[in-house]
């Protein structure tokens, strides 16, 4: 069964360093998302991406964040200068253009900023 895959599963980084989280969405899906979940808190929307551009972003997604789909398969989230409060699980999701109802999530990357 097709699935969304994310790498790495766990990333530890020093404050101020740049990190890139990688996602391979389900092939033939056209909408891509990044969400994050701080430990014990809600799943929060960060950004959606369609047709090679950001279609919507939340207030969390500030200038330190960027997304890219460099090669038609990978979908990446970059955090330029990590802060302690960026520590969270980051989930990638994708959706088929034929459905506006269901998004499928990856297993997540646990980012720990020290």
């Amino acid at each position, binding site marked *: 069964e097709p699935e969304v895959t994310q790498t790495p599963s766990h990333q530890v980084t020093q404050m101020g360093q740049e990190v890139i989280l990688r996602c391979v969405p389900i092939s033939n899906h056209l909408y891509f998302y990044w969400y994050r979940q701080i430990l014990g808190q809600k*799943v929060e*929307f960060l950004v*959606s991406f*369609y047709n090679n551009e950001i279609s919507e972003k939340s207030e969390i997604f500030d200038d330190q964040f960027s997304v890219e789909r460099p090669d038609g398969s990978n979908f990446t989230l970059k955090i330029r200068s990590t802060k302690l409060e960026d520590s969270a699980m980051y*989930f990638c999701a994708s959706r088929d253009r034929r459905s506006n*109802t*269901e998004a499928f*999530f990856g*297993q*997540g990357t646990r980012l720990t900023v020290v």
Partner: protein
Amino acid sequence: TQLLEQSPQFLSIQEGENLTVYCNSSSVFSSLQWYRQEPGEGPVLLVTVVTGGEVKKLKRLTFQFGDARKDSSLHITAAQTGDTGLYLCAGPKRGQNFVFGPGTRLSVLP
């Protein structure tokens, strides 16, 4: 603002018991999804309900979408320890992204 609330926040029951958890909003949603999330993992889609009043069954799980499409419930019959997890409801916001409820954390004790 389209917000989803879930209740109860926590639920601890014995194996074999029945339970119902709820997802509510003051807004109408075109659909609602239920996910289950286990610690350290991503949300796994259980079901999508689309039509007001719709009932869907997934083995021991019964999902219902309210007639007005503002609420949904998940009923589990004869809970098992494997049902333990965080149950999340989510719905599509205006635009393209999904908004999540805070979840119900279910513990099924042996």
